[in-house]
Structure formats: structure tokens, C-alpha cells
């Protein structure tokens, strides 16, 4: 093998391509042979060969990169396998799973953080998405330009470079966001009270959630004891464990463009006649939205809820860029996938990491299946 890393990977890519084509021929040939044995027509034989030939890349990849890894990781999850140790793995049965579910503080923290993002973050994100979708749906001139501007954050969202820019903007002392909040608080008294009220409520909720995690409610008592925030208080976005999740929510709201497009599709699907009929009956715009559009949008709300929930289990980049160097506060915002990464690759405990992967996999499967089951029940489809 040559030492040049670029040549190395290029040759490996070439080798992989040849390997895939060879396997495709092989798979297609075997399939054709079986069909011929069973007496298929020449046309059918030919189609069988072509079908397996073209589908082979996925079929081979499924075995190498999905099925076999899943099998191995399930086996490892029942052992204490570790890359670092030389000794053969010991069988532990379901010990790893029991530890994760009942004794692992980090895992419980990640569940509670996901819950916080789901209960507080997702409604905010969806409200922003719905608001923008309704604005765009007015079909004004230049709609496409606005739509582009609202979707751009989805493309940029999780790039490290953009997240670093957020880190600059969220700095509690010199960051632009707090500078603007300070300036507005000084200028308008109502804004100042709004800001202080927001800080108060946010800190109480966040402290309560942190209390749920540790079982100690000192922080909540401290916040309550401190009372209504002083008039020069600003949010402590990336400095305080009370604010880390709110910063992530801010990023979620900024990246609401994907949800917005889903809502936009939903709004486009609402039959025009319904609105026209309501207008004849004298309904106001407000009534039309809540009585007609919103009920018909529930499938899309539900879809966004499930997708958003799954996405919040998988948040990685924002936590890595915003909080990696501030270990004491990482646990206040950790997501399941970040926890998996941290746990597995700090000690290379493959057994425990495999068990964690399976727990994440099963949680996501359950959420998805619940979506399939429930969506017929409390979601309005009938008017279509």
C-alpha cells in the first residue's frame, strides 16, 4: 500500500467499485441460475439477472454495514468487550442494559434533556415554522426569495463553522444577542420586564428539570430564593447549566425551515373551496385558520413532532461545539447520541456502548411505531 493518504483512498475506492461490480455479477448469476432451474422463461431469467445486478450494491452494503454490525453489537452488548483490554470478553447477560436503564446518571440526564427539548423546544420550533409557513402561504410577490432565506439555516445549521458563529453571538458578556437585549431593556421598560419574566420562568423550569435528574432541588430553591431577576440580568446562554438547553432550542427555532416546508405542503393541500365556503358564511381570517386550516394540518404537526423528537435524540454538533470544553455543564444538555459517543470513545468500552446503541435504536423504533399506530386516531384526515 502506498503511503499517500489520497492515493490510498482513491485506490481503495477503485477496488471497492470493482468488488461491487464483481459481486453484482455473482449475485445476478446465482439468481438467474435458480430461476433457470425452476424453468423460468428467458425473458424472466434476464430480468432476474438485471434486477439483482442493479440492486446488489445495496444488498451487499446492507449485509456488511447494517445486518452484520447489528448482530455483532447485540452480541457485544451482552459482554464486557473492550478494545483496550487484551483479555477475551466476559459474558454478562443483560447486566449492561440493567445498568443503563436504572443506574446510569448520564443516560437519565440525556432522557430528561430530550424530554425538555420535546416539551418546551418543539412547540416553539413548530410555532415558528407554522408562522413562517402561513406568512409564505399568502402568495406575496417575492415569496420564493423569502422561502429561500427561511430554508437556508437548515443547510447551514449543523456546520461547525456556523455553530462557532453562534458561540460568538451567545457569549453572555460581549455577545451580540445579549448586547441587543441590554440595549432594548435600557430603552423600553416593557421589554425589560418581558426579558426578566422570561429569564425567571426559564430558570425555574430548567432548575426543576436539573433537579429531576440529580434528585436534589438546591438549584431550584436558589432560583426561587433569588426571586424576580434584577433589572440588569441577561440570559447566560453558554455559561450556565440553566441556559444550555435554551441555547439549543434557539438553534432549533433558527433551523425550523424544514418543518416550515412540511407545513407549507400541508397548507397547499387544503382545498380552496373550504375557505371560500367559510368566507360566504362570514368567517374572519382568524376563525378560518383555527377552525379550518389548523385541524387539517394536524397530520403534519404530528409528523413534525415525531421527526423533531427523533432529531433531538441525535443532537451532536451543537453540544460538541458549544459545550465540549465546559465539562461541568455538558450533562445539562447532553443528548443520547452525544452520550453514546462520549461513553464509547473515552474508554473504548464496546460492550457498554453496544448496549447503549441498542437502547437508542429501540427507543426510535418505538417512537416510529407509535406514530404509525396513533396517527389514524387523533389526526384529522377525513375531509380530504
Amino acid at each position: 500500500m502506498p503511503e499517500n493518504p489520497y492515493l490510498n483512498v482513491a485506490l481503495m475506492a477503485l477496488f471497492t467499485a470493482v468488488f461491487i461490480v464483481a459481486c453484482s455479477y455473482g449475485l445476478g448469476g446465482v439468481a438467474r441460475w435458480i430461476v433457470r432451474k425452476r424453468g423460468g422463461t428467458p425473458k424472466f431469467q434476464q430480468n432476474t439477472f438485471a434486477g439483482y445486478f442493479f440492486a446488489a450494491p445495496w444488498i451487499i452494503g446492507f449485509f456488511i454495514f447494517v445486518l452484520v454490525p447489528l448482530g455483532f453489537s447485540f452480541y457485544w452488548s451482552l459482554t464486557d468487550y473492550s478494545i483496550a483490554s487484551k483479555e477475551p470478553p466476559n459474558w454478562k447477560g443483560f447486566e449492561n442494559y440493567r445498568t443503563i436503564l436504572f443506574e446510569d446518571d448520564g443516560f437519565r440526564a440525556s432522557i430528561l434533556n430530550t424530554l425538555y427539548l420535546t416539551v418546551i423546544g418543539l412547540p416553539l420550533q413548530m410555532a415558528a415554522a407554522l408562522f413562517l409557513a402561513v406568512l409564505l402561504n399568502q402568495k406575496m410577490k417575492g415569496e420564493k426569495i423569502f422561502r429561500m432565506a427561511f430554508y437556508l439555516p437548515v443547510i447551514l445549521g449543523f456546520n461547525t463553522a456556523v455553530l462557532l458563529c453562534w458561540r460568538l453571538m451567545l457569549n453572555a458578556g460581549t455577545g451580540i444577542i445579549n448586547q441587543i437585549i441590554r440595549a432594548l431593556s435600557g430603552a423600553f421598560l416593557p421589554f425589560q420586564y418581558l426579558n426578566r419574566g422570561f429569564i425567571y420562568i426559564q430558570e425555574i423550569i430548567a432548575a426543576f428539570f436539573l433537579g429531576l435528574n440529580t434528585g436534589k432541588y438546591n438549584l431550584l430553591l436558589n432560583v426561587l430564593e433569588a426571586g424576580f431577576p434584577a433589572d440588569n440580568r441577561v440570559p447566560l446562554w453558554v455559561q450556565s447549566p440553566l441556559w444550555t438547553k435554551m441555547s439549543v432550542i434557539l438553534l432549533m427555532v433558527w433551523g425550523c425551515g424544514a418543518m416550515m416546508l412540511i407545513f407549507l405542503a400541508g397548507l397547499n393541500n387544503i382545498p380552496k373551496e373550504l375557505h371560500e365556503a367559510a368566507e360566504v358564511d362570514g368567517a374572519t381570517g382568524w376563525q378560518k385558520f383555527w377552525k379550518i386550516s389548523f385541524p387539517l394540518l394536524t397530520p403534519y404537526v404530528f409528523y413534525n413532532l415525531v421527526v423533531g423528537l427523533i432529531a433531538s435524540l441525535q443532537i451532536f454538533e451543537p453540544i460538541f461545539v458549544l459545550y465540549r470544553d465546559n465539562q461541568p455543564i455538558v450533562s445539562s444538555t447532553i443528548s443520547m447520541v452525544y452520550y453514546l459517543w462520549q461513553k464509547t470513545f473515552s474508554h473504548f468500552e464496546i460492550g457498554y456502548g453496544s448496549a447503549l446503541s441498542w437502547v437508542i435504536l429501540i427507543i426510535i423504533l418505538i417512537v416510529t411505531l407509535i406514530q404509525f399506530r396513533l396517527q389514524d386516531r387523533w389526526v384529522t384526515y377525513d375531509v380530504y
Partner: protein
Amino acid sequence: MKRYFPFIKSVVLYVLLTGATVLMSFPLFWMISSSLKTIEETNSPGIVWIPKQPTLDAYIQIFNNSDFLRSYFNSVFYVTLAMAGTLISIAAVAYAFSRIEWPGRNFVFFLMLSTMMIPAQALIVPQYVFFNKIDWIGTFNPIVIPGYFAGGAAMIFLLRQAMAQIPKELDESAFVDGATHLQVWWEIVLPLVKAPLATIATFLFVGLWNNLLTPLMYLQTIDLYTLPVYVSTLYNINQTVQPWPTIMTAAVLTTAPLIVVFFIAQRYILESVIVSGLKG
């Protein structure tokens, strides 16, 4: 009064739309503005909207930073190589699922759809062990090669839907003329699905360009770092004063290709997302 209502309504709408646009693009503006500032300005307690004397020092500095340039090249290199293989294999598999009748097709298709429920992160641990066993840690292989096996069930699905809409008579007449499946795939079907291909290529590009987790796991040495990994190291956690203008310059140069690609392809993407409900 009622006469003016439509006018007032559209003014209000435009104010809201413009306000939202300003908020949504503010981070971009701040990134560019900060890249032209001095360190003192980025860390000053007052608001500096636009630097009084814009300076290109940070740009000059970053263009002399060989680590940054190399990571830029690494990103371009790995994204190109991974995209080529992924696109071709996805196009082949989508063809098998839409234009050919073969025994077992429905079963394999169902299997493929169900893998969409498996989060990629659930597989990183066993894959890491696997790549460790075959000595691929510290090379580009783990972030390039898996894509060659038609990585991305959602994209195969999107392309399959597009291919299924092409009339069957088209390839049948080609077969009568003696064409093979390879020819029909490459010369007839692929040219007809250029728009969905462009969408998929864009999503692939964005996903690969932004990817942090797997390069972070596999690329171990600074020589191999891709942009997201390298840029994250520019924020030096051991320093109290961060070189913000330099970091923001790197950020501008990192995001520029994303924005360019998005502007070129947005017509296809936004339409297809609205049509298919696929989340990008």
C-alpha cells in the same frame, strides 16, 4: 377605510416577512462582519455592527495557514470521491426498484424502507470496531467507502419515485432495438431524472460537507482533518481570548460552498421537499 384594507394587509405582511428574513440571516451577516474586524472589536463590550476600518488581516492570515488550506483540500477531495460512488450506486439501485420486474423485489424494497428507521448512530460502535480490525483508522476509507454501497435509503426512495413515473414504453422500445439494461439505465432513464438527481446530489453534498461525527472518530491526525473537524480546533479551549476574526474568516470560507450550491440547486430542492415531504 375598507378600501385601504388590502394595502395595509400587504404592508404588514411584507414587514413581517422582511423582519423574519433579517432575523434568519443575521448569523450570516454577523459572521462576515466579524471576519473583517480586529480582535479588539470582536471582544469589545460595545456593539460594532460594521467595522469602521474593515481589515483583511484575518483572510491573509488564513490563506497562509497551511493546516486550514490542507483541511479545505481534504474536504473537497473526500466529498467528491464519496459523492461520485454514492450517486452512481444509488442511481443503479433505484433503477432496479423501479424499472425491472424481478423475484424478491418487493421484499428487498421493504427491507430497504425499514432500514430508514435505523439511526446511523446506532451503527457507529460496531462499525468502529470493524474498521479498527481492518486497520482503516487514520485513513479516509471509513468516511468514503460505505457510501459506495448505495448509502441512504431515503435518497434511493426519492429517486425510485421519480424513475417510476417514466413511461414503460420508452425502455420497451429500446429493448426491441436490442439495447441492454445498462444502456437503458445510462442513456434513457438517467437523463430523464436530472432534477431529482440534482436534489440528491445537493443533499449528499450538504451532509458530507457538514459531517463532523465520523471524521472526528476516524481521522485521528491533523493531516487528514476535514474542515468541520479542523475549524472546531480553531476555537482554542485553553485560551481566554479567542481569535474570533480568524475563526469567522474560516467560517465564511467553509459556508461559502454550501451557500453557492444551495442557490444553484434551491429550485429543485424546495420543490421536491414540498412534494415528497422529505426532511433534508
